[in-house]
Structure formats: C-alpha cells, structure tokens
C-alpha cells in the first residue's frame, strides 16, 4: 500500500467509488499525522466542494446517530446520484486511550451503499466535541465528491461548539426529559444552533420542550435584534416522522446560502494556509535561533543589557534572509510536534 499522500490523493480523485481503500488510508494518515495536512494545501482550490457540511450535535442519547441514519436514507432517495459522507466522533478513554465507536451501529443498513462513506473517529483527548482528525477526513470526503457531509459530534454538554468551525450549518438535537427551560437560556451550545431538532417527539414532554425552546429562541432573537429565530423541527427519527420536513428545511437553507458557504469555506482555507505558513516559518526560525548562536549568546546579552529583543529579532531575520540553513523543498519532518 502506497502511503504517499500525493499518490493517494490522485487515486481518490481519479476514481472515488473504486478507491475507497485509498480514501480510508488517506484519512488515517491525516488523523495520525495532523501536521501532514499541509501537504494537501497545494492545489486545494481545485478540489471538489460539498454542497453542504452539516454539524449534528447535542447531548448523549438524544438520537443524533439515528437522525443521521434517517437523513442518509432520505437524502439518498431524493438524490440517488449524490454521494454522502458521515464523520462520527466518539469519546476516547482518558485511562487507556482506547475508544468504543458505536455510532455506526445505527447506520449499518447503508454500509454496502457505494454512495455512502461513514468514518468513525475517536476524540483522542481533544476537547470541543470533535477530533483532531476531522479536518483531514472532511477534506478527503470533499475529494470523494460527497455532496452532503454530516459531522456527528460526541455527545456534548454545554460548551463544545467546535463543530461550528467546520460546518456550514449546525443542528442541535434535543430530546425531552433533559432539563427545564433554564438550561435553554444558557450561553454556549444553545447559541450556536442554526436549526433545532426536538427528537423523540412522540414522547411525553416533547411539546413542552418545543414551546420552551421556541419561547427562548424568540426571546433571544428579539433581544439581539437578529431577525428571525432559528427554526425548530419536531422529529421522531426512529420511525422517520418529521424527517421530510427537516430535510426540506436543510435544502432550503442550502439553496439560499450555498454561495455564501463556499465563500466562508474559502476564507477558512486561506486562514488555515496562513496559519500553516506562519507555523512553518516559526519552526524554521526557532531552529535557526537554536543553532546559530543568536539564541544562547544573544539571550544572555539581552539579559546583560548589551542588546535588545528587537535587535536580536532583526539579526535572526537577516540571517534567515541569507538562506541558512537551506530550505529542503517538499521535505516534511514527521517527528515535529
């Protein structure tokens, strides 16, 4: 198996349906070596982009995986030619670093559908509801020409909002019986939702939760003067009730905001590349600082008052402008943190 990123990318791009193995290997490579994502940036503007990246988040047991399963079913019925990717994140053990990833259990009926690709990720100690590998998996699913990508977070509490950085839209899934209206007033997670889903709508307390949610969202919208409050969908995902309405709503948003999402993603890519360039420059300057003598001698001289931090930085930049040590084109040091 060729583990060269460039070759794997070429294989996936050439034939995303046949080369699922290459796609899966690429995802592992990027998950295990997050810094290597920089190798994807050259030419990224040319990659296919999904129509929509939807984040699905909410407390454990609210029905996120079941909702994802039903969304896959319905989306595939409506768009038989479209591909769909799912990233399902589950927590890692603090003690053993191991993980049980069980979201897939709810989605197994799509396992042999060549248009559906599901990838489970363990959070590996990463806080925020996602995993470090999400960025890479998301890119590869784009390359596989997935039109819709669903990111299911770990079961979250109140502060895990990272999914909003990756998704065009975030759906917050709630179920009755998980706290009163005060919980809905709190900051954090509840502020990030673009659409709310009251799942298990057939259960006692669902309409009460819906009305509390609506009143909270209306209150918030009027206080913030931010236009219409986010919509609330009632679903009972296990039986499929309300799923049509939920997908209708997503598709309306997609038609209305798709162009804006593309612009947002492009801006995020630019920020990512900027960060990567700065990190690489920092790494090289740090190496030079350590090896050139500017570091140990210079720092001592600053402390003695013989020179200043500014002068030292100027000296370092001048040294780097002379091109020492030589820049190794294309070389990636995997050992760096």
């Amino acid at each position, binding site marked *: 198996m060729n583990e060269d990123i460039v070759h794997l990318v070429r294989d996936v791009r050439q034939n995303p349906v046949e080369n699922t193995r290459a796609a899966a290997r690429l995802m592992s490579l990027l998950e295990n070596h997050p810094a290597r994502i920089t190798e994807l940036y050259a030419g990224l503007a040319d990659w296919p982009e999904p129509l929509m990246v939807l984040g699905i988040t909410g407390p454990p047991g609210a029905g996120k995986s079941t909702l994802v399963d039903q969304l896959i079913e319905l989306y595939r019925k409506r768009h038989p030619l479209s591909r769909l990717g799912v990233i399902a994140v589950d927590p890692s053990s603090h003690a053993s670093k191991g*993980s049980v990833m069980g979201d897939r259990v709810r989605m197994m009926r799509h396992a042999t559908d060549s248009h559906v690709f599901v990838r489970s990720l363990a959070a590996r100690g990463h806080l925020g509801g996602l995993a470090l590998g999400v960025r890479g998996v998301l890119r590869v699913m784009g390359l596989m020409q997935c039109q819709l990508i669903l990111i299911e977070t770990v079961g979250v509490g109140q502060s895990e909002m990272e999914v909003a950085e990756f998704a065009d839209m975030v759906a917050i899934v709630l179920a009755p019986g998980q706290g009163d209206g005060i919980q809905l007033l709190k900051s954090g997670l509840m502020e990030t939702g673009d659409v709310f889903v009251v799942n298990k709508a057939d259960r006692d307390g669902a309409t009460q939760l819906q009305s509390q949610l609506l009143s909270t969202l209306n209150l918030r919208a009027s206080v913030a003067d931010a236009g219409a409050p986010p919509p609330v969908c009632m679903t009972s995902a296990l039986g499929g009730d309300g799923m049509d309405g939920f997908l209708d709503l997503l598709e309306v948003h997609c038609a209305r905001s798709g162009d804006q999402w593309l612009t947002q993603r492009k801006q995020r890519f630019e920020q990512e590349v900027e960060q990567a360039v700065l990190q690489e420059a920092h790494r090289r300057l740090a190496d030079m600082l350590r090896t050139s003598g500017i570091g140990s001698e210079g720092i001592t001289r600053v402390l003695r008052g013989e020179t200043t931090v500014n002068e030292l930085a100027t000296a370092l930049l001048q040294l780097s402008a002379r091109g020492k040590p030589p820049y190794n084109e294309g070389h990636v040091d995997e050992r760096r943190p």
Partner: protein
Amino acid sequence: MTTAHPRARILIGKPGLDGHDRGAKYIVHILRDAGYEVVYTGIRRSPEEIVEAAIQEDVAAIGLSLLSGAHNELFRQVIDLLKARGAEDILVFGGGIIPASDIPGLHEMGMAAVFTPGSSAKEIIATVDRLLSVRQEV
C-alpha cells in the same frame, strides 16, 4: 494536545442471525481498556456490510463473534471478500461456540486466531497485541 496514537483500530462484527451479543460487547470492552479504538457494528450483519465498514474505517483487524454454528461459512465469506477487495492485510480473528475440530480448518482458511468460551481477557489481548505488532501501521 493529545496526539499519541492509539494501539490500532479494530472492528468487531457479528455476522449471521444469532443475537447473542454479550461476547462481542465483552471483547469491545476489553479491547478498549487495552487501548484499542474499537468500531462496533452491532448484531446480524452480512459479511459484505462488515467488510465494507472495515475498509471505510481502515481498521487493522476484524473480530467476528458468532454463536449460531455458521462460523465455517461466514468467516470464510469475510476472508474471501477482503481478498476480493485487495484488503487481505486486514487480520481476521473470531470467537464463539466453535467446536475444537473446526479450529484447524479455520486457521487454514486464514483466521489469525480463534477464541472459544473460557478464553481469558488476558489471553485474548496478548494474542491481539502479538498479531497486530507485526502489522505495519500508518
């Protein structure tokens, strides 16, 4: 930031029609506690579903649990499908109510290990560790 690699990713599947998943869940549990990232796929899965999921998840090994007696047939199907997909580097081990007389045949068809009732957690983990330590990880 935690980027320490887990030991490996392993998929646990239950092919066939029996719904006795206690053994499968037990294995999921002990593998997790031994530091593996375990994808569990639930009961009554076809060999096709298990193999496709294993490829998408890029696991190092598949563990199959079966108590219905159809192990000779279903384990073989999983191994054959992996070969057909060019994924024979994914190890397959299994467990369940399996007569001792069937075990040599299972090894011959390519099962890396077979565990029967009474296998200890320690023994299972030691075997999986040994099998996966020789496999080249990404």
